[in-house]
Structure formats: structure tokens, C-alpha cells
């Protein structure tokens, strides 16, 4: 690997940047077929059965962010397999399929249907979903449940690269992180959205149809940086260390580099795409902007490859506390 080339588990990417789940869709590639700067894409979470999603309004802009409650609207695994995979396979980058569910069985069934497909390079488990069998607590917030879930999915997918996307709505993210690793995850990706709410002072009602939603965007970046750092220092380092995909509020090269220095091997970009989607013609997309910044940074400092910087901020903790 040289420069920005990145290898994570068995995925090879030409930049460490990913287009995250729920934002990227095949329509974006019609605006710009080559997807400059994008190392890999993650599909919108698919569920066993089709879901029509939450009542509108589904989004509200917040200061330096976005609150969303889409509700995982998707056509279901069958149509995903028959319609969306062929559409996505024209992309020249690794494709990661995101899976969601409301019961363990749903995750297992979907994952087992996706694992044999060669077009899919890895499976990402979206565990920010409410566990219906346990009163609606997110799968990702209960380490015991999470470990069991990951272990069952691992059995179903064999040696396929398995990524677990952690929810930040927990007291200490190191616990679910370790649980996912124990269950057999190859890669951790964090963070998903933070739970939030906006109330309309004129109507005195929540602004979102589903009342609350997930916060993303520039405002959550420091939370993402901390949580990547926490996971890296607890289960990302050393021989048994599991690589991390850092996601959360990245809109500039600096933001991406911070996550890398905190311990992320790859960086995901989502909300920033709404403002700066792919285009190579008239102006740079957020991916191009970030890619150029990282390239310039390592060249100027004579750093051979970006992976040399992973977790650098965690190296010198001479003061002895985490």
C-alpha cells in the first residue's frame, strides 16, 4: 500500500474514504459515474421484508447538522438481490451491503442471502435498530445481545468480511465494541447517528413525524472522534486489534484526518454529500476535497502511506490515562 491506498480486512480501496449507508444511492453515480475520491460504498440498509418507513416529515436541518428519521424504507431483501445488486455492480469500487432487522433471525436470514454474492464484498450490520423482542432497545446497546447476534451472523456468512456499525447511544462504546469483536466481527464502523429531537415552538409538537430521530453532520464530529479513539485504544490496537471505519460529521480533510489519527483505518462520509455530491466537472465533491487534503498532507510530511497515521494520536499517552 502506498499513498492513500487502503486495505481493510480483505477489501482493497484506492482511497480510505467510504460513502456511508443511507446517503449513497445509484442515482448519485448518474450525476458522476466515476465517483472520484470514493474508495468504497455502503448500500442503504436492507431488511427481510419491505418497509415503507416513518411518517413525514422525515428530516429537519439543525445548526451544523441534520436530524433524520427515515425509518429504513427499503424494498426488502428479495428485490435488493434481484434489482439493486445488478445496478450497483457497475460501480468499480468495493460494495458493502448494510443489513438491518428487528429480530436476530432477520439479520441472519438477510446476511446468509448476501454472503454468497460475489458482487457484495462485505456485510455491515446496522445494529442501531430496536430489538422488538427485548422491548425495543437497540441491538447495539446491549453487549450480551450484540455478541450473540454477531456470532449467529458469523456462522451464517462464513469467512465473508463482517462489519458491525456501532450506535453511539450508549454509556461506554468500548463495551459493545468488544462484544462485536468477541462475536466475530472483522471490522468495526462507528458512529451511527446520535439520538435527538426538535420541537416546533409554534405548533408545540415535535417536528419529525416519528417525534425523534438521528443526528448527523458537522456538529457530531467531536463525538465521533472521541468514540473512535475510545474503541481504538480498547480493542483496535495490537495484534488482535480490529480495524475501524470512522464516521461522523466529516466535511473537510481535517475532519477525516482527525478520525484517522484517532484510530480509524477508513473514513466514512455521509451527510456532507448532500451539499457536495460527486461531480468532477464544475467543482470538487467533498470526497475529492478530502482526498486532495490527505494526499497533500502526507506528501508534505514525507509520510509514505496514510495507514502510518492510523491511531497516531493514541501513541503518546505518556500521562497514563485513557
Amino acid at each position, binding site marked *: 500500500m502506498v499513498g492513500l491506498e487502503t486495505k481493510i480486512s480483505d477489501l482493497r480501496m484506492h482511497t480510505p474514504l467510504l460513502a456511508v449507508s443511507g446517503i449513497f444511492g445509484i442515482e448519485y453515480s448518474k450525476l458522476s459515474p466515476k465517483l472520484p475520491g470514493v474508495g468504497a460504498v455502503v448500500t442503504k440498509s436492507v431488511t427481510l421484508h419491505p418497509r415503507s*418507513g416513518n411518517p*413525514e416529515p422525515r428530516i429537519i436541518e439543525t445548526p451544523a447538522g441534520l436530524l433524520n428519521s*427515515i425509518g429504513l424504507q427499503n424494498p426488502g431483501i428479495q428485490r435488493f438481490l434481484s434489482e439493486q445488486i445488478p445496478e450497483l455492480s457497475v460501480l468499480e469500487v468495493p460494495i458493502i451491503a448494510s443489513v438491518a432487522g428487528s429480530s436476530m433471525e432477520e439479520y441472519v436470514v438477510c446476511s446468509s442471502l448476501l454472503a454468497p454474492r460475489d458482487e457484495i464484498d462485505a456485510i455491515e450490520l446496522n445494529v442501531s435498530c430496536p430489538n422488538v423482542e427485548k422491548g425495543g432497545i437497540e441491538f447495539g446497546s446491549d453487549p450480551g445481545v450484540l455478541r450473540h447476534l454477531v456470532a449467529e451472523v458469523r456462522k451464517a456468512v462464513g469467512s465473508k468480511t463482517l462489519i458491525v456499525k456501532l450506535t453511539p447511544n450508549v454509556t461506554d462504546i468500548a463495551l459493545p465494541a468488544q462484544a462485536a469483536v468477541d462475536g466475530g466481527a472483522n471490522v468495526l464502523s462507528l458512529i451511527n447517528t446520535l439520538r435527538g429531537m426538535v420541537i416546533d415552538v409554534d405548533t408545540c409538537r415535535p417536528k419529525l413525524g416519528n417525534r425523534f430521530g438521528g443526528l448527523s453532520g458537522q456538529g457530531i464530529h467531536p463525538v465521533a472522534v472521541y468514540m473512535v479513539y475510545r474503541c481504538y485504544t480498547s480493542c483496535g490496537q495490537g495484534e488482535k486489534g480490529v480495524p475501524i471505519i470512522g464516521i461522523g460529521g466529516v466535511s473537510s*480533510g481535517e475532519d477525516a484526518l482527525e478520525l484517522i489519527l484517532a484510530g480509524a483505518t477508513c473514513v466514512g462520509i455521509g*451527510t456532507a454529500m*448532500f*451539499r*457536495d455530491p460527486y461531480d468532477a466537472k*464544475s467543482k470538487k465533491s467533498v470526497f475529492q476535497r478530502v482526498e486532495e487534503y490527505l494526499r497533500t498532507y502526507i506528501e508534505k510530511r514525507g509520510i509514505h502511506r496514510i495507514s502510518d497515521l492510523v491511531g497516531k494520536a493514541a501513541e503518546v499517552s505518556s500521562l497514563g490515562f485513557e
Partner: protein
Amino acid sequence: MKAVEVKEHRIKRYDELLTLLGKELGFECIWPNREANEVVWEATSGATCSFKITEKHIVVRASRPLHGQEMASEVGTIVHHEFEKALWTWCKRNPERGDQLQKALYEPAQDFPEPEPPQHLLWRVLENREWGPEYYVLTFGVGGRSRIDPQPGQFMHVVCDPDGKDTLTDDGRRRGYALTLRRPFSVHRVHYAGFDRRLLATPKMLPFEISHIIRRPLSKMDILYKLVGEGTRSLSRVQPGRLLDVIGPLGNGFNIERERTAIIVAGGIGVAPLVALAERLRYLGTEVYMYLGAVTQEHLQPILRDAAVQRGFIHGTEFCERIMREFEEIGIDVVKVCTDDGTVGEKGLVTDILEGDIEAGSIPSHSVTMYACGPLAMMKRVSDVARKHAIPCQVLLEERMACGVGTCFSCTCRIRGKDGKVEKKRVCKDGPGFNSEDIVW
């Protein structure tokens, strides 16, 4: 009259129309005389028919031999825009053939290029002015080589804070915070290079020249917006000369049928996309009835963009007359202005006045399509009126958007599919134009 210079392919088109026409009536073309703009046809019966194209009409002279010797002739004239609609009287005397002719002439619209795929563009702001209370009109200058042809009902997805963009500079350092989302604005008016919209009134030129003009590049585009939040407020502060980052044109606009008549109903800021629609319908020679509703006179001011109007020097009846003249200019003779408070035009809700006119028979309710845009309750009301009188009706929906291209599923609405099942459709991609009957209100 002097010979009119026309492009080869347009002459060919006109000839094709005449050939079809002639054949249907049993004539064969024997002598096209382009310089005199006349074509002569002959039938096996010996009858002849000549079409002479003048500035205003097509003069049709048909003669048939009578008793072997005498020639009885009929002269008819057809106004150009009627010819395009195949409503000319001579055809009607042979109703069967007349109908066939109408079918032959009514091919799917070849005049308009297929919409270009949406593009990511940088457009210059030429003007950005307030014309009503917190109502602004922003004019974009479109690059000379643009091949975009925005359809009525489509929208542009705009970054409203260009300075916010500067905080996310190209060198990758982060300096501040920008608005997370773009804002969608429907296309209000389009301007084509060198085309005077008053030509839409009655074609003073030959029909094939008008469709030739439509192929000219887009030179300017207007959006009409109201200050409702952070994004629009930011946009109102953009000075002329700045470049704005836009994506578009996006969405499925109105599905324009080649009906002879259209009724357009506007509610407040909903008038924005309907002006583009009215102009496009006039290109097609449709007869348009326009209903403009607003809470009060001020909300209609941006349509006129007149400083005297804005400052209140022109109001009431005079204002009403100005609006009517604005639309008469493009050939719309019936413009009903209604305000809730009666400051201009008729007092009352536009939907009530519309319903009253339909029931009184003062506007047609057959072979008519209705188009509406405005507050949700108003569009629902229009849809009720349309359903009651079996008039097909289309409305333009709006919903908070993030990606604007169909990937994120933020902007969904409930639409009844053909099988009767209710589905969540995306306003940005499956709409914004929808048949009012399919919407689950």
C-alpha cells in the same frame, strides 16, 4: 410578403403535415412553390386545392370541376395556431377525416428536446430582489452553451449560502459551519436566447419558426421564493455577480397533455412553477384559463416585478389590470385574480371562485386539464372540485429534501398505485408532479 428564411428541417416538417393533410383528403401534391409559400394539390377527380401560407393564415383554395366545365371553388382560411391544433374548419366538414387528421397531426411532442439529465452547475446571480413582503425573485444567468431545457414543475437544488461553501475550502481545512442542506426551488420562468415571449400571444410568425426558437439555448432562469427559514434568508442576502452552486433540473414536472384547454390554479407562492407552466402551454397553443389566488395583493406583486407596484403606487383595480395585461401578452385572456381580503380582484378563496365558474359554465369543463400548486389544503380542495366535474388534475407537491435525486427517501408522500396499494413515493424523483387522484390526502 417577403419570403421567410426557414431551416430545412422545419420546412420538411411543415411539408409533412401538409402531405398528410392532403393525402387524407385525397389529394396529391403537384406543385410546391416555396418562394410564394404556396403548395398546389390535385385529386384524381380533377379537383385542385392550394395552400398558401401568409403571415397570419393558411389560405386554402379548393376547386372542383362541375359539370365537366365550371369550377366551383371554396376558400377557407386557417389561422396558424389553429392549424397546429387541427381545428381548421375545412376538416370539420368531413368529420371522419377531420378526426383522422387530428390524430395524424398530434404526434407526441417532437418540438421539445428530451430533458437533459440533471447536472451539477455554477450559475451566476444576475438579480436578486425583493418584490413583495419577503418575496424575492432571483434571476440566474445560464452559461451560453447550456443544453438544459427545464420542464415546468421541475426544480433546482440550490446551495443558499455560498459563503458557507468558502468555509469548507478547497484546501481541505475547516473554518466554520455551513448549511447542511440545499434548498429546492421550482423553475419560475425560463428565458431563451433571443426569444420574445410575446410571440406566444398570436403567432405573428410561421409555426415552424416558433418551434425552431424553442431549440435555442436557455439564457436565464428565474426562481420566486418566500423567506421561510435559514436557507431562504441566506439566499436573499446573495448579491448579484456571485456564483451559486445548483443541481438540476430535477424531478418529474407536470405531465403536459396536449389538451386544447388548461385551467391553472395558483395559491400564494404556489404561483411560482405555474408561470413556467402557463408559458409552456402557450408554446403548445393551448388555451389557458388562469386563476391566481393569494391572501392579499402583496403576495401577487412578484409576478409583475414592477417598482411602482412594489411601492404601492399601483394597487386595486389598476393592479389587477396590470396582471391581466402581463398574461394577455402571452395570449392568456382569462385571468381571474382572487384575494382573501379583497384588496385586489374578487374577494374570496380561489377554489370557491373556481368552482363557481365551473358550475356557472363560464369556463369549460370538458377536454380540459387542471393544474394546481399552493398550500396543501388548497390543492386538496382543487382536487375535490376536479373530481366532482371529472376533470383530470395534476398538482405539485413539496416536502423537505436532502439529496434531491432519490437516494435518501427523506421527501416521501403517500401515493396510491395502479393496483390501489398505497406506496411511499419520493417527491424529488417520482414527483413533484402527481395526479391529484393518486394522492392520499
